[in-house]
């Protein structure tokens, strides 16, 4: 990724350097060649439509090339590949909190294995922040009230700067951290050295039970709420006839503002959990709901939590 960005950057540097050089050379040459001499009149030239067209359409053509090239990179930057490992991130004034799928939690340090796609799912507890790792050429603002996503694949072990790039108050410049990229074996060691509390999805499962979600969201069709098995990532038909995709943001919204997008065939009876669950707990719940749709070949370290009676999902009824 960084290579792609740099390739375009260097192309632009050469192009713009050439343009600057061309224009500056012309100005200097004209300034010397046509400097004022006593009694010599300027030669009047009205302008030239041919020239105007030339320097309208040639730059425009070049701009289009840059646009397409850069858009292609942006598309890659914004489209995480399938099967990426997921790290949930909560930003707050002024720190970064990370939750790994395997259950590890860390602050201002993010350990990742080399060569693996990492999808960072981020939200903010307060103001807007921005997740910026210059070495990976990625940046994504982190907003309160929703998830935004960034992804990267580190290619070289090492420690890289993590900066907050969106001004977020007093210690904005102190909201920095490190992304530590490790060899896979080392990374496994690091994972082993940490938490014994179980995976993030397991934490979510615990919350799902203790918060009483499971009383309505049963794993059959008898619940007062929709069965969540296999829902994640699929289209959902809503009561008002719209269809939305059940992504992280939809699950999140359905927990915090249950009445916003009610699934077709259900009543808006669910109470809001706004203020009752922290951002970290919300992440765990989302991770759990997501795990209900994962094929048995789940990510290493993430046990498949599909309920034993796993039925076909009934979303559209």
């Amino acid at each position, binding site marked *: 990724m960084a290579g792609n*960005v740099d390739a*375009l950057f260097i192309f632009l540097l050469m192009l*713009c350097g050439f343009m600057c050089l061309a224009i500056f050379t012309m100005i200097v040459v004209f300034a010397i060649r046509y400097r004022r001499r006593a009694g010599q009149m300027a030669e*009047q030239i009205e302008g030239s439509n041919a020239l*105007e067209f030339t320097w309208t359409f040639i730059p425009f053509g070049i*701009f289009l090339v840059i*646009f397409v090239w850069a858009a292609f990179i*942006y598309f890659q930057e914004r489209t995480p590949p399938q099967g990426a490992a997921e790290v949930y991130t909560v930003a707050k004034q002024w720190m970064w909190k990370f939750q790994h799928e395997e259950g590890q939690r860390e602050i201002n340090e993010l350990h990742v294995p080399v060569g693996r796609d990492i999808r960072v799912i981020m939200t903010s507890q307060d103001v807007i922040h921005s997740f910026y790792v210059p070495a990976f050429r990625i940046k*994504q603002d982190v*907003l309160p009230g929703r998830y935004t996503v960034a992804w990267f694949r580190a290619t070289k072990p090492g420690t890289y700067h993590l900066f907050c790039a969106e001004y977020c108050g007093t210690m904005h410049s102190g909201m920095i951290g490190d992304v530590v990229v490790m060899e896979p074996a080392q990374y496994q060691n690091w994972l082993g050295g940490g938490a014994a509390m179980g995976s993030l999805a397991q934490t979510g499962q615990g919350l799902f039970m203790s918060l009483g979600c499971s009383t309505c969201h049963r794993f059959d069709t008898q619940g007062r709420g929709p069965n969540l098995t296999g829902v994640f990532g699929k289209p959902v038909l809503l009561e008002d006839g719209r269809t939305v995709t059940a992504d992280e943001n939809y699950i999140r919204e359905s927990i915090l503002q249950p009445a916003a997008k009610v699934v077709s065939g259900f009543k808006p009876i669910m109470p809001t959990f706004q203020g009752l669950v922290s951002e970290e707990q919300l992440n765990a719940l989302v991770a759990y709901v997501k795990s209900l749709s994962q094929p048995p070949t789940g990510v290493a370290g993430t046990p498949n939590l599909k309920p034993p009676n796993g039925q076909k999902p009934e979303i559209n009824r």
Partner: protein
Amino acid sequence: MATAVVPLPERENYLNKEYGIKSWLLTTDHKRIALLYLLSITFFFFIGGFFALLIRLELLTPAGDLVQADTYNKLFTMHGQVMVFFFLIPAVPAVLGNFLVPIMIGAKDLAFPRVNLLSWYLFIIGGLLMLYTILTGGVDTGWTFYTPLSTQFLDTHVVAAALAVFVAGFSSILTGLNFIVTVHRMRAPGMTWSRLPLFVWSNYATAIIQVLGTPVLAITLMLVALERLFHLGIFNPQMGGDPLLFQHLFWFYSHPAVYIMILPGMGIVSEIVPCFTRKRIFGYHAMALAVIAIAVLGFLVWAHHMFVAGISLYAGLAFSLLSYFVAVPSAIKVFNWTATMYKGSISFATPMLYAFGFIGLFTMGGLTGLFLAALGIDVHVTDTYFVIAHFHYIMVGGMVIAYLGGMHFWWPKISGRMYPEFWGKLAAMIIFIGFNLTFFPQFVLGYLGMPRRYWQYSPEFQILNVLSTAGATILAVGYLLPMVYFLWSMRYGKLADENPWGAAGLEWMTSSPPTTFNFDETPIVTWEAYNYDEIDREKGVPVER
């Protein structure tokens, strides 16, 4: 005149017609109002500049050691707000535009002279609110007022600052309105649209943006104030609001505002270049059309400030493409200025040095804009020093340089005196060098990943920051020089005749300084703009000064 009491019977002009504070504060003469603005914005320029100097001093070392973090945040916030809203936006339209637009089209004054005075009073009320904000502890939202930081998380004078900008905005709207009506209704006989000087075209295009864009900013800031005072929840996600909505609204004005700040500068350069090359501007119609195109397209590119803010992929694609559209007319202008020099008779007087500086720096500012409009690259360099450098190349390298060029060019007309040419050239050179030393290293800093608005930073960025701070001190000297010699020249400068540059344009056909109603009788225009061939055939090419 019989009423003259000064020993030397000086010709009556707008400066000596009346004396006394009242004759200034109640004046409806566009030229006197222009001078009122000149004093006010110069005052704010030095306040904003002082903040900038403190910022650069803090950044001399990686540690946050000169000022507290909160103080630093206030410094860059107030530097931005003062410079953008109280210097750059009014600079050329309200000072040079106010002075020159009516004269250039052969009118006695603007269409609504009293509204013009009202504009200045609104500006002053806004300015006083800003001073109140500064003196009572300041504000630290960043000049962009981003929510929910500004609405829920700060307890500084956000409402006062928003109100200051809100009020000053109305001054801008009224100036714009005045210019539009004036250009439509008050042109002298024969002054057709295609004979208008490009400076008038630029101010006309600017006025359109001021009238259409500024109300959106007013609404946005009003919402910020209401949200703070009454907790409406428009930008608060917990109440179903959307913090991104603020960014859309803010940039809907603030991107076009960039063109409010640069178009008049382009207008100035389009006057200076023909005069000091003794040529008709190359491609007059393309130049006028480009100005209007920039004003219109400028309204369609706001979300290019938000490529990483959480807008959709496809919104990103659309706004990137539209941003390349607006780059085209800017490129056209650079090519035409350059082509105007071809086979000219080029003089290196101070205004022309500034024009050279403008074309060079604006070109670099514009070309680095291509980097930022390129989606994949913007993701890396947005919100870093790359952006800071880019917009300072446009705002300072472009607008401030053009403004200074214009001030030197029209100073004989405004004051009736010549500035000292040697000091003028020296200052122009110092500013050019100081500017590049200040801001060029910031492009590199940004690419290396230094985020903007950082009070303390990683030590590897220090060398470039030291260079930048060194440049800023040179730049400060460069700005003080014209202050000093302009003041000096008001008393000791050589008296200027009506047309010291042998320039085309109606403003050079009236006395220096002009009389209150500009012309003894309404001029009838029978020539095209920039008719330097006719002027030089009649009077010969002016000798190098």
